[in-house]
């Protein structure tokens, strides 16, 4: 980590937070619909992971707006997708849960819990076969690590020593079910231990996430095969905007919000990286401007034409 990188990470964290609030506001106004899973509270995790794993392939879940932007997909294209517009990154056909951009090696946006993990294994297999330098990173929640696809993937990835980083976002909840009620222990890394090296990190701290992912990446590059990283996070709101979050007590939410990753990282920027208030203000303003422009763009973007309905079912017409 260096000052410039820290500032960049801070920029994407602020961008992410403001973007999610703007998405929520536009959902309330009816401009955005469907399921909208906000990444509020998990900005450090999402941004630092992407910035550490800069080049390889990414397979993510439905909670992926911030990751997509940190991966270089324009906020305008993401917001326009949430609005269902033709200029959205998935042409308005995917929506919030299905952001795809192969030019950024970003493959969803998958809304079948755990479904992306075997896909990432396959992609890692391809990369190994191609002798590529870059590995693959798959992001999934603590809910997904209870599923069969996850366990099958641990086995296959380690058998073939694939260049795959398993990144578990452990926010302790799968919708309303706490991990303690769906698994015998909280730490999901325990499940991976027999198969591969595992690392754990406080997912609310950007620098720690960044360094841990870098370390995992190095292990993969050195030929250790797959590595499992578990980041403990906490989401600030319900599972999606339609979830009232009533299963978490006020005290629990209080403890959660006390770990605000933005406040923590801002303090680091001021104290450790010697940023000035003015520098940070400029970053914050720039991020807010990007969000405002994204919303403006999405509002004015065009609807897909009706012919789009039948397009892209197949590559080749018959």
């Amino acid at each position, binding site marked *: 980590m260096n000052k410039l990188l820290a500032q960049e990470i801070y920029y994407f964290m602020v961008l992410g937070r403001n973007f999610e609030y703007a998405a929520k506001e536009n959902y309330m106004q009816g401009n955005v619909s*469907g*399921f909208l899973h906000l990444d509020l509270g998990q900005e450090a995790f999402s941004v630092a992971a992407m910035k550490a794993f800069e080049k390889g392939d990414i397979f993510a879940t439905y909670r992926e707006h911030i990751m997509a932007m940190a991966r270089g997909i324009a906020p305008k294209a993401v917001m326009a997708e949430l609005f269902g*517009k033709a200029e959205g990154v*998935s042409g308005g056909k995917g929506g919030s849960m299905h952001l795809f951009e192969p030019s950024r090696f970003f493959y969803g946006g*998958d*809304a079948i819990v755990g479904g992306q993990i075997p896909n990432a294994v396959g992609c890692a297999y391809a990369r190994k076969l191609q002798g590529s330098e870059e590995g693959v990173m798959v992001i999934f929640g603590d809910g997904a690590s209870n599923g069969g696809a996850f366990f099958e993937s641990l086995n296959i990835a380690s058998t073939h020593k694939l260049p795959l980083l398993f990144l578990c976002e452990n926010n302790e909840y799968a*919708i309303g*079910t706490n991990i303690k009620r769906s*698994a015998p222990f909280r730490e999901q890394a325990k499940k991976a231990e027999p198969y591969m090296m595992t690392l754990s990190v406080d997912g609310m701290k950007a620098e720690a996430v960044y360094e841990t992912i870098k370390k995992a990446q190095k292990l993969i590059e050195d030929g250790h095969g797959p590595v499992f990283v578990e980041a403990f996070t906490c989401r600030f709101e319900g599972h999606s905007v339609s979830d009232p979050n009533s299963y978490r007590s006020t005290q629990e939410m209080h403890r959660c919000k006390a770990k605000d990753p933005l406040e923590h990282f801002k303090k680091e920027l001021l104290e450790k990286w010697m940023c000035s208030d003015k520098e940070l203000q400029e970053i914050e303003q720039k991020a807010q401007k990007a969000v405002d422009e994204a919303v403006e763009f999405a509002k004015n973007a065009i609807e897909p034409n009706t012919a*789009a309905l039948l397009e892209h079912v197949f590559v080749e017409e018959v």
Partner: protein
Amino acid sequence: MLYREALNKALDEVMAIDDTVVTLGEDVGLYGGSFRVTEGLVEKYGEERVIDTPIAELSIVGNAVGMAIGGLRPVAEIMTGNFSLLAFDQIINHMAKFHYMSDGKIILPMVVRFPQGVSKQLAAQHSESYEQMLCSVPGLRVLSVCDVNYAYHALKFAILSNDPFVFIEHELLYNKKGEVNFEEQLDPFKARIVKKGEDITIISYLKMVDDVMQSIPEIESALNCSCEVIDLCSLNPIDYATLATSIQKTSRVVMVEEDHKTGGFGSQVIAWAAQEMFYSLDAPPLRLAGKDVPIPYNRTLELASIPTPNSIAQEIIAWGRKNDV
């Protein structure tokens, strides 16, 4: 009473009289079910009978099969039809086949509750319908629920039956209002005549029944005719007798379904009509269904991908004019 309340009441009543009945699924317990169908049950019957599971659909259905073998009557909830695909091995290779493969020795009194369909902009991985696959597998009873009264009676029946049932609900119907006649002795395998008419038999199921009903005034005034609307209710078995009586009277048949057209469930109904009702028909059968595309997110495209009250009316009117209705 709301559709979801009728389902809740059915479950509640059966759990109260039969303590072998258990329900399991993602967030069915403390959370009350993602469509609130199991609300209040964990408080009444405890976590051992209202079981919150991990996100593991194959195990939800697979465990239900084992519970049934072990002497319970499980009601498994799949959160959304698309997720059932992870459980299809259990549904098709296990749930549907054990009774037959064991020469009748294994009995699986179980229900898989199955919310599905196009809701509102939930996109391709949360909107599909799977009755075509479920009904092509011998050994499963498949019921579909449009009506609130039917919801209550049919769910009770399915839980107390000794056969394996897939119980299909539509995600947009949970807050639908209706009356329940608690005294009624309802036969869940009988189709429901929603509206009587003389000139066209319109067959449908799930939410499309309501969409058809909305389209009726326009059709009847444009064609100056009267339509009979039938809700199939049971998809396996199909109540052909009720359909035959209606078609003999009207001599015209239309099938409306939300699912993708190719290979869709309605093709069975129309194939039957072409083969068995040929001499009663005065017009070629009409089949309206969803487009053969994954369901898109954008609202306009989403609505263009399935029949709507407006498109149903337009297509039936055009067909009627062409065929001298």
